[in-house]
């Protein structure tokens, strides 16, 4: 190991955590070992079900019963901590080990002010007076970057925004000056720009105090920016552990290599993401030998029988038999500079595995020949012409056909006023939330348009406006030349609904838990009269399920028997049942793991090419958007600030907000790079700033920006709504 001679601060040896259940004992963690030196930042990365949160919970002693530590041990500073009595644990937590959890809203007690909670923590562990504890609390809040700390000490958690709450949680964790911090997904619930600020804060504070950090997350970009070493977990075991640079660029375990390759990279430009077929095994079905061997393209016979132990390779450790065997694990995952170079050796080696793509195309062809053919859309010549940049509707002369979807001055506001009596008695004005405030764009047939923005920017509202779930307050949506909302309200609503469908974000809530999968997919067929009865629809349903990579065996199962990625496939099958032309996808992969995300995105891409679909893709993840879309619209507080073809947007972002968004994304390549994250947070949508809504956070704002609202103008083939850009000021 490459540790200095001093003993590690935290040492975990062969930790085994079990959950007794009525169907037997489930091993959630199976022999996890790692160590953390004082002052170092260790990242623990893995997909859902890998056991990383459980590892963090075991370290702090917050394992929920019936889970228990069955064997192995945890040592902190030389002392064993996993078998402490409650009093010992109490003295350990907070003082020596601090914790930061994912959701800042539930991490703070809503009934007590922030100051009370800070003082309580400080006084519980340090022998100071109440007054001094309060002074320390103020100092802590100032350090974490909360303005007017002394006044805000008496505010309640709900009076802080999400990012500020997480700063308070960090302050709480650091209050008693612990030497180790366990951070479980500290930035997952936050916006991208806030995420960058919080990561920077955590890094700085821990470095200043010399505190070690165990950072648990599924986001490799965050790991690349903050951590010194990283442990990759799979199915309750450590697959690989080593310096961050080595794991990202020269991983020795096929799973780590596949994971790094399937992460959409903001700088890469492959159309198709590298995907690992299959999914992480469930706790009650872990394969014998190496848990990864069913998904591994290079599995040796030994891998199915004997479980590999962590062995030294390069600067770290990996649990893989390929290292032992003279089989060229290093040649497969050799040092590479670009992601495509990284993917190529793997792709060559995997040539024997039938590509999922051809399977999908074969099944799609089979589905097309079924009784429910898709005659609506001929495969137009724009389908597959992904590189065509010009999409601005205003350049009418260049556009040979009318766009499939045309949105003009679309707006939607919600009345969020207090009830009438309160308004009368307290003399409050009516309050309107302008969720969408004048949006224009056009989507040509067969292409994908992405709408990106942070939470509260209105992109989900736009999605719902386009499918008819909301009525617009102003403006028009034209679908294939006709007014969509007039059609939705008219007698032919059903015909229009057949052509427009939607895929939702949450795979767990988008399927009725009491319906079987077969019923779920058959419902649109029955509703639109495409099949006379449930029995007659069976063939079509099976065809649809096969086109998304599932099978006839899944017809009678319930949604809870499937994983998140599979549920999303079922949603896609349901959306495709009526052979629509236009699909609105509202963050379809945000709730999925990285490797599953790659599978679903590739599937959607294949279906688009095969059926000539048009997508509107809503996302907050710019890297994903880079891979799937032809043009991108950036939204901020209900308005479009920039619309451009994808490549041009990422190569040359114009609007200051776009530039900051792109800059805020943690990059895998930028290990240890210091960035200046964007200042401030998204303002309250109920009180948007006057003029350009971005001006409080924009370093180039001037008087005109504060008073006059900019309009989208086409400059050099892209549309930008920014006075500075339009005036040609140097940025």
């Amino acid at each position: 190991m490459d540790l200095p001679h001093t003993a590690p601060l935290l040492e975990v040896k062969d930790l085994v955590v079990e959950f007794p259940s009525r169907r037997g004992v489930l091993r959630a963690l199976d022999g996890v070992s790692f160590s953390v030196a004082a002052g170092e930042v260790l990242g623990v990365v893995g997909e859902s079900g890998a056991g990383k949160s459980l590892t963090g919970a075991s370290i702090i002693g917050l394992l929920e019963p019936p889970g228990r530590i069955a064997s192995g041990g945890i040592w902190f500073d030389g002392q064993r901590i996993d078998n402490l009595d409650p009093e010992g644990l109490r003295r350990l937590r907070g003082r020596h080990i601090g914790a930061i959890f994912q959701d800042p809203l539930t991490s703070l007690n809503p009934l007590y002010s922030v100051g009370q909670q800070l003082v309580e923590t400080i006084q519980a562990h340090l022998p100071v007076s109440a007054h001094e504890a309060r002074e320390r609390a103020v100092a802590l809040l100032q350090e974490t970057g909360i303005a007017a700390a002394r006044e805000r000490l008496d505010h309640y958690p709900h009076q802080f925004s999400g990012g500020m709450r997480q700063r308070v949680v960090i302050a709480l964790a650091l209050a008693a000056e612990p030497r180790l911090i366990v951070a479980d997904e500290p930035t997952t619930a936050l916006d991208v720009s806030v995420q960058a600020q919080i990561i920077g804060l955590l890094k700085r504070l821990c470095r200043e105090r010399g505190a070690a950090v165990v950072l648990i997350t599924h986001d490799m970009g965050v790991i690349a920016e903050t951590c010194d070493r990283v442990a990759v977990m799979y199915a309750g075991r450590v697959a690989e552990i080593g310096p961050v640079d080595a794991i990202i660029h020269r991983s020795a375990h096929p799973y780590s290599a596949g994971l790094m390759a399937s992460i959409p990279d903001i700088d890469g430009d492959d159309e198709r993401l590298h995907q690992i077929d299959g999914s992480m095994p469930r706790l009650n079905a872990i394969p014998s030998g190496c848990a990864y061997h069913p998904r591994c393209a290079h599995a040796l016979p030994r891998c199915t029988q004997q479980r590999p132990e962590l062995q030294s390779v390069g600067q770290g450790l990996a649990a893989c038999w390929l290292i032992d065997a003279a089989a060229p694990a290093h040649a497969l995952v050799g040092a590479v500079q670009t992601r495509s170079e990284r993917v190529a050796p793997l792709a060559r080696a995997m040539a024997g595995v039938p590509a999922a793509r051809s399977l999908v195309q074969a099944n799609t062809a089979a589905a097309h020949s079924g009784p429910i053919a898709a005659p609506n859309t001929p495969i137009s010549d724009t389908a597959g012409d992904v590189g065509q940049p010009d999409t601005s509707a205003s350049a009418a002369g260049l556009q040979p056909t009318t766009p499939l979807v045309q949105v003009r001055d679309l707006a939607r506001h919600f009345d969020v006023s207090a009830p009438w009596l309160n308004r009368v008695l307290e003399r409050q004005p009516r309050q309107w939330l302008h969720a969408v405030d004048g949006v224009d764009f056009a989507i040509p047939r067969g292409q994908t348009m992405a709408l990106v923005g942070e939470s509260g920017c209105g992109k989900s509202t736009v999605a719902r406006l386009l499918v008819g779930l909301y009525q617009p307050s102003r403006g028009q949506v034209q679908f294939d030349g006709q007014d969509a909302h007039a059609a939705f309200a008219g007698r032919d609503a059903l015909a229009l609904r057949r052509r427009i469908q939607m895929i939702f974000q949450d795979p767990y809530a988008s399927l009725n838990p009491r319906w079987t999968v077969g019923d779920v997919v058959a419902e649109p067929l029955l509703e639109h009269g495409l099949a006379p009865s449930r029995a007659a629809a069976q063939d079509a349903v099976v065809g649809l399920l096969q086109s998304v990579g599932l099978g006839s065996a899944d017809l009678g199962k319930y949604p809870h028997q499937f994983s998140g990625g599979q549920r999303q496939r079922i949603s896609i099958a349901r959306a495709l049942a009526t052979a629509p032309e236009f699909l609105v996808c509202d963050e379809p992969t945000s709730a999925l793991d990285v490797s599953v995300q790659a599978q679903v995105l590739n599937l959607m891409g294949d279906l688009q090419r095969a059926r000539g679909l048009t997508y509107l893709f809503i996302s907050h993840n710019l890297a994903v958007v880079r891979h799937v879309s032809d043009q991108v619209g950036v939204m901020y507080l209900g308005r479009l600030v920039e619309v451009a073809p994808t490549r041009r947007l990422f190569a040359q972002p114009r609007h200051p907000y776009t530039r900051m968004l792109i800059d805020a994304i943690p990059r895998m390549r930028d290990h240890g790079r210091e960035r200046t994250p964007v200042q401030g947070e998204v303002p309250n949508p109920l009180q948007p700033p006057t003029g350009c809504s971005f001006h409080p956070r924009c370093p180039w704002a001037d008087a005109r920006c504060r008073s006059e609202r900019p309009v989208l103008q086409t400059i050099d083939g892209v549309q930008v709504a920014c006075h500075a850009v339009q005036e040609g000021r140097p940025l």
Partner: protein
Amino acid sequence: MSQASPSAWARWWDSDLVHSFRHSPTAVVAALLALACVLAAVLAPWIAPHNPFDLATLELADSRLPPAWSAEGNPKYWLGTDDQGRDILSALMFGARISLLVGLSSVALSVLLGVSLGLWAGFWGGKWDALIMRTCDVMLSFPAILVALLIAGVGRALFPQAHEALAFGVLIASITLTGWVQYARTVRGSTLVERHKEYVQAARVTGVSPARIMRRHVLPNVMGPVLVLATIQVATAIITEATLSFLGVGAPPTSPSLGTLIRVGNDYLFSGEWWITIFPGLMLVLISLSVNLLGDWLRDALNPRLQ
């Protein structure tokens, strides 16, 4: 799938709910007791030793006999007889029949009414929600027995020569109209949550009509708490009916329910003939207790947070 999947019966037997039932002694005992009472009531015409309503079989000489195990008891009448010579055991079984009939049908009607109104209020919101919920609030501010008495009294006043069926109708109506409120509120709350879930929105995008969404999508997902409430309310309905009968406005005297029997026996309590009122009382307690315990188990078993 290489292996034959287990049959529907086997899957149900292995499901979490049935497993929890099998491993809960309280639930099993309560279920057996309730089953015994129900069977006794249902099969009363065939298995009761005597027919207490056939006046020809009554012998006045046998009246007010204590239970069979005491000194002056007669083995022909296991639990003794009342003032008219009716066998208490048989009267119990027929009485339970009436009580269960009234209890189950009033709960069924309450569920129908309450769930429909709750779904409507939760799904449409706005004025409908306000109207239905305010009605619930008003109904809840009256004691249930009072309302039932009122309705029963009005019914009797309207139909003075009410024959049996109508009297039962009024009785069931009065219990129904006081019981539907809690279902409406529970279902309305659950509907408000489910309405915003994405599978409902997906159904809207597909073009499914609101009525079908309510019936086929939302209803199966909100029925869980209703089941628990209904089970416990059967016991309450039976007791309410017994109270009304005790007060004289319930079941007609020609087909006495358990409440009527208790009332009749009450007069003889202080002359030492305790068996005429105690045994019907015990039967009532047995039914209510077993049903309540079953309802408790069901509520815990269906609560995902207690797993």
